[in-house]
């Protein structure tokens, strides 16, 4: 469910709703009572189910492969033998782990930066500048969000192979440099949060158009841009379909590593699971730092690019 468009009703209104909610909550004041222990217990179960598959991965990663094929729970706690699996995965010549990690970082960073920059530029233009054809063009952008463009994979593949880009990173990066959702999201945000007075003040002071964008619009867009960047990053990092078509195991991304683990070592389940955890780990670490922003982003409508 990688690329799903968003409809006009949620995005942008999220922030307004949150504000309204805070007012309502304040008004209700002490009338709202604390949640009961049942709520915590149920949420605890949800949390356990969320975490358990990851824990189970660690468990299988530290178990003996023969034991795994005979027992669903070979042991209850992960142990240090996990690191043997990590080492084997990292040192394997069939896996190319470091290359995959580097590639994933490059793709996710470049695509996020490009999507944020192009979306902010276009969003600023749509939200704050007047020009001929603005309305129809914006409608066009919104309409394209509902079109499943990834169904154009065949011609895209033909194009990439004509350019001799098969197996190279640009084959993954170039097709996703812009996002209709990103443009829509930044347009919504900037039209609500950037006052015309600021732009006019900069223009009166003699700033050129691009200077105005750079020193007024870009800083104002920062919160929304950060969220757009985060979601694009996660989306690209976990993306599998298109990279699996144009990249090979010699020059993979991390999700492709999961595939080569499966095809090369499917008999050794503890190694496969150790590798799966290793592939998952970087984004989990990032999540520990930006999880709060992701939650806020989803709740304000920065969803799905």
């Amino acid at each position, binding site marked *: *469910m990688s690329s*799903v468009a968003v*409809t006009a*009703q*949620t995005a942008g209104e999220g922030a307004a709703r*949150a*504000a*309204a*909610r805070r007012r*309502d909550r304040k008004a209700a004041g002490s009338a*709202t*009572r604390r949640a009961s222990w049942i709520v*915590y217990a*149920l*949420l605890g179960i949800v*949390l356990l189910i*969320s975490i358990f*598959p990851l824990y*189970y991965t660690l468990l299988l990663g530290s178990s003996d492969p023969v034991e*795994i094929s*005979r027992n*669903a729970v070979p042991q209850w706690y992960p142990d240090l033998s996990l690191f043997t699996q990590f080492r084997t995965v990292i040192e394997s010549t069939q896996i190319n782990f470091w290359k995959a990690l580097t590639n994933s970082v490059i793709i996710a960073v470049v695509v996020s930066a490009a999507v944020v920059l*192009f979306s902010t*530029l*276009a969003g*600023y*233009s749509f939200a704050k*500048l*007047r*020009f001929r054809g603005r309305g129809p063009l914006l409608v066009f952008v919104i309409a394209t969000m509902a079109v*499943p463009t990834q*169904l*154009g994979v*065949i*011609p*895209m593949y*033909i194009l990439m192979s004509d350019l001799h880009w098969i197996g190279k990173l640009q084959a993954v990066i170039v097709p996703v*440099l*812009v996002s209709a959702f990103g443009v829509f999201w930044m347009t919504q945000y900037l039209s*609500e949060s950037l006052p015309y007075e600021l732009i006019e003040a900069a*223009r009166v002071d003699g700033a050129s*158009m691009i200077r105005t*964008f750079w020193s007024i619009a870009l800083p104002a867009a920062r919160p929304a841009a950060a969220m757009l960047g985060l979601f694009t990053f996660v989306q690209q990092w*976990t993306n599998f*379909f298109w990279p*699996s078509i144009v990249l090979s195991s010699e020059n993979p991304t991390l*999700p492709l590593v999961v*595939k080569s683990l499966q095809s090369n070592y499917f008999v050794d*389940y503890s190694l496969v699971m150790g590798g*799966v955890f290793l592939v*998952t780990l970087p*984004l*989990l670490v*990032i*999540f520990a730092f930006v999880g709060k922003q*992701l*939650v806020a982003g*989803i*709740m304000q409508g920065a*969803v799905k690019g």
Partner: protein
Amino acid sequence: MAVLTPQRSAPGSGAPQRESRRLGFSQRLGRWDVKLSPYLYISPFFILFAVTGLFPLAYTAYVSVHEWSLLGGQGDFVGLQNFVDVLNQPTFWKSLVNTLSIFVLSSVPQVIIAITIAALLDQNLRSATFWRMGVLIPYVVAPVAVSMIFGRLFADQYGLINSLLGLVGLDPIAWHGDRFASHVAIASIVNYRWIGYNALIFLAAMQAVPRDLYEAAVIDGAGRVRQFFSITVPQIRATIIFVVITSTIGGLQIFDEVRMYDATGLGGPDKNWMTTVLFLYDVAWGNQHSLGRASAVAWMLFLLIILIGFVNFLVTRQISTSGTDKKPKRKRITRGNA
């Protein structure tokens, strides 16, 4: 700068006396700056989108009416032969049924469980952010990794799920052998990743429900459950529709989960869990190596998604026009924010 204000006719009419004066180079430059910049700023999106979004979609139609092999390249014009070939392949029809089955099994429980979790999160919780982050963890695990893990949990022999079923005295289920069981397992992979995510979307909607509605309900003697079904669910109807639409578009394009569900990754020996996108992959890069037929598949899937999207749209409009009580509230909230 007058151009920047909402009035459209601003640049000329705003300063007529200046028109007569001869413009200096920098002023002329400034005027071009104002006129061209908006187009310049939107051009990266439109140029790149034309190349990477529109052109491939249109070109799919061209490829679909040609003989076109993966290695040999373009062949003869064959009219609708590729479409006929695809429609004559039983696997195509099987993949459509699989797709719809997995889609229903994933989206319906997904929405119901997500709303329930959102209702729990909507209580007055201590350390609310902790719980919200907790339900979002599955979102950052790549679908391919989730699928590998769940493939093991749902192993036919010595899988954890079957062991648990054994503990309560039930027979093991052939999660990879039985068609329907495999759909349940794959749907649970999809649900694992998206339930928490959708719960947060629902939570945001629930928090926008005016609290005085609940206070009135309490005075009228309504319990928690009654409040949930009579106030919460009707109030977040628009968001429910939104989530249903997005999960429709995504649910019809399931690939990662089924590709990694077994070691071969082509839908199992009887194609029991081959989805249409996986079929497209198989036709192009798997067994058939025919880009022409794959384009025909893409085109038909595209039409199916548009069709279902259109039905969704009609239903949405129906419901949003009948829910007249919603509109004034929305306006109030928006104005309050401005």
